[in-house]
């Protein structure tokens, strides 16, 4: 349709309005929409009645709420009457309609917009004229226009057609009531940085859905929700650059009824009682530090640090020299955690859905780690000298100690240990400064044991004297590194399919061959060795490509993550167990093999008809990241257990035991069986 044809239609439309009631009618219609009255056959004298417009909308098409959201427009009603009193339009609570990159607020299916009307005193009939304008959208939008009139007698008693009254009542039920009658209380409304606004509610039961009334201030995107006991924080995205008003309103719904809070004043600063907030952050920092300390014992980190430590003993350096080494190492570790934290925050600010371990969702990073661990393992075994050089470098110069600190963080990435989950989960939602503090806490924790040993001659003297046994131990420690290589190759395989194995192992072969060339043929051999190594690296990294077909869950009782299936099962009163996992998460794999897929646990699950869901986070997946955020986490493993009919999940500890699963069905409190990792 050309612009001019379209304008012509408007002129016709304008003419029809100008012609007064001549074309006015009981209903209106346009593309994909029909509108008719929901009104009684007769009104009662002096009594206010709620009537409305019933919009019948084709499946898949939408009409909008008063705040239409990121695009779209609310319908408009322009009344004229013969003296009857007409109230404001009453809007049933909406649903969020994600449409491509936007979110709209509107209705799935038919809807009625209602209003109150009171016949004029002494009038024998009531007559109304309305000019309507609406917008109906699927992805494309079509505006509609019409005029409708209503003429009804006014008698001693009102009379309804039963079906229409029921329809009216059905939508009247969805009209928001005053907020003061709601099960929730507003605690505060505050700005959270320049881009977010946080609404804090208090009340028991399931968290309500919350819709902003002012689309100029807040976008319609689903707010991030964080619950803490009876307290719920909703964080809304602000329209970029929107100035803060003194107050703003929201509609809350439990899915059946709704309540409206018109003017919630902004408070100057976040209002949560400060001592609570401080205590929480204090505990989280402690948990982060403890988590960092425990990381030292993880199989991927331990060998690197032990060698470094023995280097320190061996050299018998002066105390202040060792202390300097320790400090440089700490600086390396903390700086790397700070860099990772900054990256995570930058990504978070950019709206990307990421979480801890996100480094390992990238195939080049995994391949680089394979190579790194392979070279370290070979050097530990004494196969080649480069390792000695690396270790000498690490052991002698300050830059080396710093590099060891950096290295320790990278090799620690896959080992989310106890205590880290809660701290990292909090870091994902806390303000930037607190989140960064948590990352620094982890770095400090990772660095602490080494720093302590290097600073304290007493402790260092307690270590066994240097001797040939160190060489033997170093060779022994090569084996956990070889194991790590195998595991990382498996991760690469999960990321890339079968070609991941092939690319990885061929690269390892080429590297060993290059080393052999370099050692066996002196100068020319070394040049050829470099050449082979560089060619292999370029080929391997160039060949990294994601697999074409989706990964399948190895034909098991476990379903891939699908929110719709989970919701259906829960609505049907079925228990649901969700295993949030990733191939690169070693704790997850251990739990899976030892507990979740053990015969007795599988039998337990089957005999209780539990829906088993495996949410695989090996690759970046915004849906799973979102689901984790709703649980207040941003790392794996997380084990969420929904007992039949329960509204909220129980989270199991990160290190699972069979008896914990058994306890789910025997009614014992699992949290008493083991020390919970949440502070």
């Amino acid at each position, binding site marked *: 349709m050309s612009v001019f044809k379209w304008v012509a239609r408007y002129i016709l439309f304008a003419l029809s309005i100008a012609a007064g009631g001549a074309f006015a009618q009981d209903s209106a219609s346009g593309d994909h929409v029909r509108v008719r009255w929901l009104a009684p056959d007769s009104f009662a004298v002096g009594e206010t009645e709620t009537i409305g417009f019933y919009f019948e909308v084709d499946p898949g098409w939408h009409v909008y709420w008063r705040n239409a959201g990121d*695009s779209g*427009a609310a319908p408009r009603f322009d009344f004229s009457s013969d003296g009857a009193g007409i109230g404001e339009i009453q809007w049933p609570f909406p649903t969020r309609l994600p449409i*491509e990159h936007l979110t709209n607020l509107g209705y799935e299916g038919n809807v009625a917009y209602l209003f109150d009307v009171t016949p004029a005193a002494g009038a024998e009939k009531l007559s109304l004229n309305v000019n309507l304008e609406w917008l109906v959208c699927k992805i494309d939008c079509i505006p509609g226009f019409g005029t409708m009139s209503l003429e009804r007698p006014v008698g001693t008693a009102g009379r309804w057609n039963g079906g229409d009254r029921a329809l009216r009542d059905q939508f009247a039920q969805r009209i928001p009531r005053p907020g003061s009658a709601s099960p929730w209380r507003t605690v505060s409304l505050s700005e959270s940085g320049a881009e977010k606004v946080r609404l804090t509610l208090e009340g028991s039961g399931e968290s309500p859905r919350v819709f902003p009334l002012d689309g*100029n201030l807040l976008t319609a995107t689903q707010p991030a929700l964080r619950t803490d006991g009876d307290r719920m924080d909703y964080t809304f995205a602000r329209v970029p650059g929107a100035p803060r008003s003194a107050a703003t309103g929201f509609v809350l719904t439990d899915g059946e009824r709704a309540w409206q809070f018109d003017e919630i004043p902004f408070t100057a600063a976040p209002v949560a009682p400060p001592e609570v907030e401080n205590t929480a952050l204090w505990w989280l920092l402690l948990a982060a530090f403890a988590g960092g300390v425990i990381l030292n014992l993880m199989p991927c980190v331990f060998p690197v640090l032990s060698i470094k430590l023995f280097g320190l003993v061996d050299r018998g350096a002066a105390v202040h020299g060792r202390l300097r080494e320790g400090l440089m190492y700490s600086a390396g570790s903390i700086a790397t955690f700070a860099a990772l934290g900054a990256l995570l925050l930058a990504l978070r600010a950019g709206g990307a859905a990421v979480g801890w371990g996100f480094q390992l969702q990238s195939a080049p990073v995994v391949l*680089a780690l394979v190579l790194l661990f392979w070279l370290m393992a070979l050097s530990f075994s004494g196969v080649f000298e480069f390792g000695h050089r690396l270790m000498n470098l690490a052991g002698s110069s300050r830059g080396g100690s710093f590099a060891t600190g950096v290295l320790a963080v990278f090799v620690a990435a896959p080992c989310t240990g106890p205590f880290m989950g809660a701290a990292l989960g909090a870091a994902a939602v806390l303000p930037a400064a607190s989140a960064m503090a948590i990352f620094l806490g982890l770095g400090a924790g990772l660095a602490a044991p080494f720093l302590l040993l290097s600073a304290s001659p007493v402790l260092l003297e307690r270590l066994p004297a240097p001797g040939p046994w160190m060489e033997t131990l170093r060779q022994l420690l090569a084996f956990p590194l070889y194991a790590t290589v195998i595991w990382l190759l498996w991760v690469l395989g999960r990321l890339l399919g079968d070609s991941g194995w092939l690319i990885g192992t061929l690269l390892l072969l080429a590297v060993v061959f290059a080393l052999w060339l370099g050692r066996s043929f002196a100068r020319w051999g070394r040049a050829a060795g470099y050449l082979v190594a560089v060619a292999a690296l370029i080929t391997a990294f160039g060949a990294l490509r994601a697999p074409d077909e989706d990964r399948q869950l190895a034909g098991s009782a476990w379903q891939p993550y699908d929110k719709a299936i989970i919701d259906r099962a829960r609505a049907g009163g079925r228990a649901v167990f969700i295993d949030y996992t990733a191939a690169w998460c070693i704790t997850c794999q251990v739990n899976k093999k030892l507990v979740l897929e053990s015969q007795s646990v599988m039998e337990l699950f089957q005999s209780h008809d539990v829906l088993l869901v495996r949410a695989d986070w090996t690759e970046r997946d915004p849906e799973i990241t979102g689901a984790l955020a709703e649980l207040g986490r941003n790392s794996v493993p997380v084990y969420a257990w929904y007992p039949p009919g329960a509204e909220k999940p129980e989270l199991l500890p990160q290190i699972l035991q069979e008896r914990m699963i058994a306890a789910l069905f025997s009614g014992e409190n699992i949290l008493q069986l083991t020390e919970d990792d949440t502070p």
Partner: protein
Amino acid sequence: MNGKQLIRSLLLPLVMAVPALAFAAAVPGEKAPAFSEADAAGKTHALSDYAGQWLVIEWFNKDCPYVRKHYGSGNMQALQDKYTGRDINWLTVISSAKGKQGYLEPAQALKVAESHKLNASAPFLLDADGSMGRAYGAKTTPHMFIINPEGVVVYAGAIDDNDSANPAVIPDSKNYVAAALDASLGGEVIAVASSRAYGCSVKY
């Protein structure tokens, strides 16, 4: 290859990943996102070309009812004419992806520019990959942005305060873009620097 190089090779993919993932937006009071797009006549326009000058950016989709509201009535062309006449640059962008509503090949775009009597500083900028639209966080057509000579966004949002699709409401609507430009040229403070951009979704 030494240890440092190894570490660099680890960090590089991480650092490279940042710009690819971030979904930025043009925010009033902040620097405008850079762009470089060819127009329907093949000439490339970049933000840096307009340093030191005022620039209005408008998102367009010829089949969107709200775009028709402002073009069918002549409202948008009149604004373009008025402000380009005062040495303000005006770029009209199509971010519809190929196959989506509003997508135009360069030759078609030139014809549409003619039939719509487009008065912008250039024929339509063709952003079929959506890179410019996403960089600006353009949500709807018409979504409007104003950038001052210092390269700072001073307005982002709707063209006016009436989200009706009916052109008859235009005379009684408050035009945010005109108000912001008039205030700026008169050395006054812009009263409304941000609003909900109404209209059709941009068809990325």
